[in-house]
């Protein structure tokens, strides 16, 4: 007996041939929206606007050293525990957390017991206010999903205008490979499954806070 693979591929080939179907040339992947074609300053503004539209909150840091204080202030303003799980990424673990003595800082992956995670981002797409998070040793995937609050530090230098820009950055970084997981995250988790009313915090984070590190301004 032939394998299911051979039967399926055989059926595809036979039916295409029987219908006189010619192989069509690759037609391209469509136009790149005009809205995404902006100089860097415009991209940053568009990103912040689109991320807010998707119900994320945003802050801008003008120096890396400001980040711990911004995070502490965010947690206080939202009455959240002063307890963060930081991705094992040297750019984050290397920050001067001792400047915030009330903040309890640990680093690593998560089993769901951490209320707040802090992660970096590979890139983000201004076109739709979307974060691009790649998995790897310094960036475990579950930090993006299990904690109720997710804080993301995004370096403005890594921002992409359009998806086309993001795909090019991925290629430059990873070559022909892909990271095991690429998460495109647009706002916090939500569900509309009860009477089509949008509720935040279905299974992933209830809050998504983005700190845009913009050292040029």
């Amino acid at each position: 007996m032939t394998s299911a693979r051979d039967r399926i591929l055989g059926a595809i080939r036979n039916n295409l041939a029987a219908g006189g179907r010619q192989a069509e040339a690759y037609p391209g992947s469509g136009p790149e929206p005009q809205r995404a074609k902006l100089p860097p300053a415009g991209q940053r503004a568009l990103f912040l606007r689109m991320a807010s539209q998707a119900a994320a909150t945003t802050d801008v840091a003008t120096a890396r050293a400001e980040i711990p204080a911004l995070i502490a202030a965010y947690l206080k303003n939202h009455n959240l525990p002063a307890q963060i799980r930081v991705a094992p990424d040297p750019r984050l673990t290397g920050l001067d957390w001792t400047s915030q003595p009330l903040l309890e800082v640990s680093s690593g992956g998560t089993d769901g017991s951490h209320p707040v995670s802090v992660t970096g981002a590979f890139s983000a797409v201004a076109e739709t206010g979307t974060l691009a998070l790649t998995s790897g040793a310094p960036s475990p995937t579950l930090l993006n999903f299990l904690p109720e609050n997710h804080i993301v530090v995004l370096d403005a230098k890594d921002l992409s205008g359009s998806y086309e820009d993001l795909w090019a950055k991925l290629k430059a970084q990873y070559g022909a490979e892909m990271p095991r997981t690429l998460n495109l995250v647009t706002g916090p988790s939500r569900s509309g499954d009860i009477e089509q009313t949008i509720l935040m915090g279905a299974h992933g984070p209830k809050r998504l806070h983005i700190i845009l590190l913009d050292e040029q301004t």
Partner: protein
Amino acid sequence: MQSTSHLFKDNVARALVDPNLQQALVHVRTKFIDKRQDAINALPEFEALRDAARDLKNHVLSRLDQYLVQFEENVARHGGQVHWAQTPAEARQTILEICRRANARTVTKGKTMVGEEIGINDHLAANGIEPIETDLGEYIIQLRGETPSHVIAPAVHLTKAQVEETFRKVHTELDPARNLEEPETLLNEARHRLRGRFIVADVGITGANFLIADSGTTTIVTNEGNGDLTQTLPRIHIVLAGIEKIVPSIKDAGLLLRVLARSATGQEMSAYTTFSTGPRRPGDLDGPDEFHVVLLDNGRSKLLGTEFEEMLRCIRCGACLNHCPIYHAVGGHAYGWVYAGPIGAITTPALIGIENATPLPEASSLCGRCESVCPVRIPIPKMLRHWREEAFERRLTGTCARWALALWAALATRPALYRLATGVGARVLRLLAGRRGRFATLPFASAWTKHRDLPAPQGRTFMAQYRSRK
């Protein structure tokens, strides 16, 4: 899944008098349509993107075999495994074997319509493995023993009060007197209960929105994040997808993403779009040890090269359901199988046979709204007509309808006779209607006049008026 598509008329009769369903369907008519329109107004390139999406899918279908082979190679290159299934039974068997090898006791599930197509939940349960739906809507209907009534909003047929009632009945460990008035409370209750199930599951099964050939990547799109927990926490991730889900590269997935969420929920992007390539890698702190992709044909390949091929472009956004006057009136369950609405009315006959779904292509006024909103421009009304023709040719259409059509054809192909008959008919009806100008009952048309009056012709026929004014 067992089909009741052949009982469409009975299903409809029940749906029309179901007060909960009718109350719930109001949300489809209003919310989805406005949100989609707002999103499209904000993107001037939308129509050009629809053209590009159509052309891309046509290209892929014309070389489907090559792209599938390329996808398989690239999944293997990253340490994953592709399994081919020509029938639902083969797909069920493959998944069961993977679960058994892992000694799986519970399986969490992201939303998968192909899973409904092959009836995976019943099969796992029958073999002692508990399937747990994790999408909020899917979780609710699983508790109620129901099937999805909408491709992206599986519980859209239910009211909040029904969800509350279900949770009280099933979540018996919680205080029966608790307040579930706010929808947030219902959501939190489900979140809390499911969190524990996510952590202990042995296998996670998700569907796929796209399969990317040149990297062996699968893609899921969700708003809740349930798909991500489903595929990251258990030791084994199984992706279940139809063979038509292939795209050449990630930038082509990007094209389809630009039209998908806007057409579906009116979002610019859904909250989570996740690209998965193979199992956990050295140094990773999380992710599955095994990555399996089950590719299902189930009759899709036989549509290639036929007048029905274009339905394989579907990206399952649900826009055609949201805009269909029939769906608005009867909801999804009336269609009797996995896929509801206009796309269901053309897909169901293709996958389970027109002889088992004869009434579905008739369930349309051919108004064309479905085609006008389809992000990949599937000519759904044309295909409904193809199915009607096929049903007629195969003598599946009822005797009465066949006689009526034969009579109509005899008239319509003889212009002189047609004008004579319609001219006489118009005058007779006008006389009979008298001053009222309409009929509350008519012989042979009681099913129609039961719900509305038939207006009487107001004057001479169109042709007669046209001639006199020329």
